[in-house]
């Protein structure tokens, strides 16, 4: 298992200035420059060091439980008349793909000599994955979480605390994920020397989008090997993933970016409908701007104020997307669709009943678009099942009783 190192020839990978096409960069205040510059100048060296790769590989295997299975979903395939495989990131330790990144970043933080870890979280999945690796390594952990999300996601707050993390409510602005991210960045400004910021998605200033994508690229690396075994070809016809900031999609697409015969499908959260005023479909509703120090597509007012999105899924409830995905959208390399709250709920119930798998609300968005793809019976479709649905039971139960 190797962490992908860019060969330098890709149209879709980050360039030497930290951009994907016209998106990306590091729009950081000077106070963050030393922190970000340290990462920019060191991350590739650390990631390509054989001892780092050995440690990363060993933890992913023995602690996370990788490789995660690539499961042929027979009854789902019969329903949609195609060969549908699920990449089972839901079976990872902590229940989602998020841990691939936190394992990578905690090892990086150790090599940078950091003693304290901070993170932001929305639904709490990344917060739990960060608190987990901090407990594993015996490092101090502070997680910023919007005060509204703390109320909505009590079980994950309890998990983080049990794992020894301090959960700090973000009470500014709209009191959700974007504000938690602001607070984490502020903490980093005030603690420039001993602290590493484990950002949870493929967004933020360069090198985070690239670094997170590389740690998550283990997903598509495994898909290639597993598909070769099962079908005789590394390449599926479609790779389908949900997108909030875009880390599971970045990992699922990574090794297919330059294999243009593989169709990449990104599913955003349509909320109550793309034009309902309650949506998180960034490519449909967004324009170019700066969010969390990255030039990308984001949802904003005509005055350039960032707006609060809506999705039933806290993990997709983000007003921007990572710069790689903005570039995949603009270049046409990936097809962007959106699934409404209702479509995602229906897909979650369908997978539960057809395959005995309760998916995370986020992953259900990806499943929800199987019905809209022009599939042929021979098409091989890989859906990234980014997480399990335990955390969403309250939402599912509420819907069940309707």
């Amino acid at each position, binding site marked *: 298992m190797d962490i992908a190192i860019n060969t330098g020839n890709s149209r879709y990978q980050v360039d030497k200035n930290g951009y994907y096409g016209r998106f990306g960069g590091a729009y950081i205040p*000077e106070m963050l*420059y030393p922190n970000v510059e340290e990462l920019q100048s060191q991350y590739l060296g650390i990631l390509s060091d054989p001892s780092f790769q050995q440690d990363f590989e060993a933890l992913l295997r023995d602690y996370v439980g990788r490789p995660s299975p690539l499961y042929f979903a027979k009854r789902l395939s019969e329903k949609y008349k195609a060969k549908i495989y699920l990449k089972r990131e839901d079976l990872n330790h902590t229940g989602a793909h998020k841990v691939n990144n936190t394992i990578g970043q905690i090892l990086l933080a150790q090599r940078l000599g950091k003693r304290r870890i901070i993170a932001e979280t929305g639904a709490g999945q990344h917060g739990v994955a960060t608190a987990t690796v901090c407990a594993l390594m015996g490092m101090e952990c502070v997680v910023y979480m919007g005060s509204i999300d703390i109320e909505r996601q009590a079980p994950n707050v309890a998990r983080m605390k049990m794992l020894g993390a301090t959960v700090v409510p973000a009470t*500014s602005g709209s009191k959700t994920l974007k504000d938690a991210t602001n607070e984490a960045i502020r903490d980093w400004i*005030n603690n420039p020397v001993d602290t590493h910021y484990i950002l949870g998605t493929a967004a933020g200033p360069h090198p985070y989008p690239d670094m997170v994508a590389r740690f998550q690229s283990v997903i598509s690396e495994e898909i290639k090997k597993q598909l070769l075994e099962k079908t005789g070809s590394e390449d599926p016809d479609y790779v389908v993933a949900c997108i909030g900031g875009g880390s599971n999609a970045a990992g699922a697409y990574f090794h297919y970016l330059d294999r243009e015969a593989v169709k990449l499908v990104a599913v955003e959260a349509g909320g109550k409908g793309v034009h309902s005023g309650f949506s998180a479909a960034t490519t449909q509703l967004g324009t170019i701007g700066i969010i*969390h*120090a990255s030039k990308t597509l984001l949802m904003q007012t005509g005055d350039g104020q960032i*707006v609060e999105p809506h999705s039933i899924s806290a993990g997709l409830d983000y007003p921007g997307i990572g710069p790689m995905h903005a570039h995949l959208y603009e270049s046409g390399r990936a097809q962007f669709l959106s699934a409404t709250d209702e479509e995602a709920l229906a897909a979650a119930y369908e997978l539960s009943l057809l395959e005995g798998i309760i998916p995370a609300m986020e992953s259900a968005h990806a499943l929800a678009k199987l019905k809209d793809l022009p599939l042929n019976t021979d098409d091989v479709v890989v859906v990234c099942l980014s997480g399990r649905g335990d955390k969403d039971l309250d939402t599912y139960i509420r819907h069940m009783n309707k």
Partner: protein
Amino acid sequence: MQNRIDQLFAKKQHGVLNIYCTAGFPQLNDTLPVMTALQQHGADLIELGMPFSDPLADGPVIQDSSTKALQNGMSLQKLFEQLAGFRSSIRVPVILMGYFNPVLTYGVEAFCAKCAEVGVDGIIVPDLPMAEYENEYRPVFEKYNLHLIFLVTPETSEARIRKIDSLSKGFIYAVSSSSTTGKDKDMKDQQAYFERLKQLQLKNPVLIGFGIKDKATFEAASAHANGAIIGTAFIKAIEHSTNIDETVKTFISGIIQ
């Protein structure tokens, strides 16, 4: 015409007082009354905050003022409406401080043109990094004779400070500690850093900001630089003011008397 910031530093090199206030705060139409009072009672420079939903480099006090101003209905367009004609009464240099996203959305050139039209002299955009400015935006700012003012911190290397000095116009904004606005840090810890800046003999004047809140901190900062910037303490002072002029008078007299 020579930029007003340059005119100011040509005649005053010591104890320059720059006060920050968020535009549209505490009430939407307080922008001009606050500016008028600041000039009247002795501020040398006025820094007006353009409110933003996600002000990363600011602490809670300034962020809350920004949120309040947005709730009041402040926007860039509204700000330029308020500033139309302000040069008939206000002579001191005026700087707009804000984040890059609203400027980008307004259009960088349209923004610069509007600043020049109403009589703004300089801009502080903390999240517009030097490299991006140099590669893409510098000609536009220079075309409209707008000074872009960069920040330096105690962690900024000498080579980078020199580079910032070569790109900066007007003055350099020395952040007095690696912190968001409104944090208390012991001034003494910062003195070695201020001394180091002084020794570099930069071409631009230096104003010290962040953590300046009263006469003592203002004088300590002024001893090592050309002056200082007060933001958070001023926002706290006018937050609940019922008489802007009186509040500003009392605040400034507590600093420079």
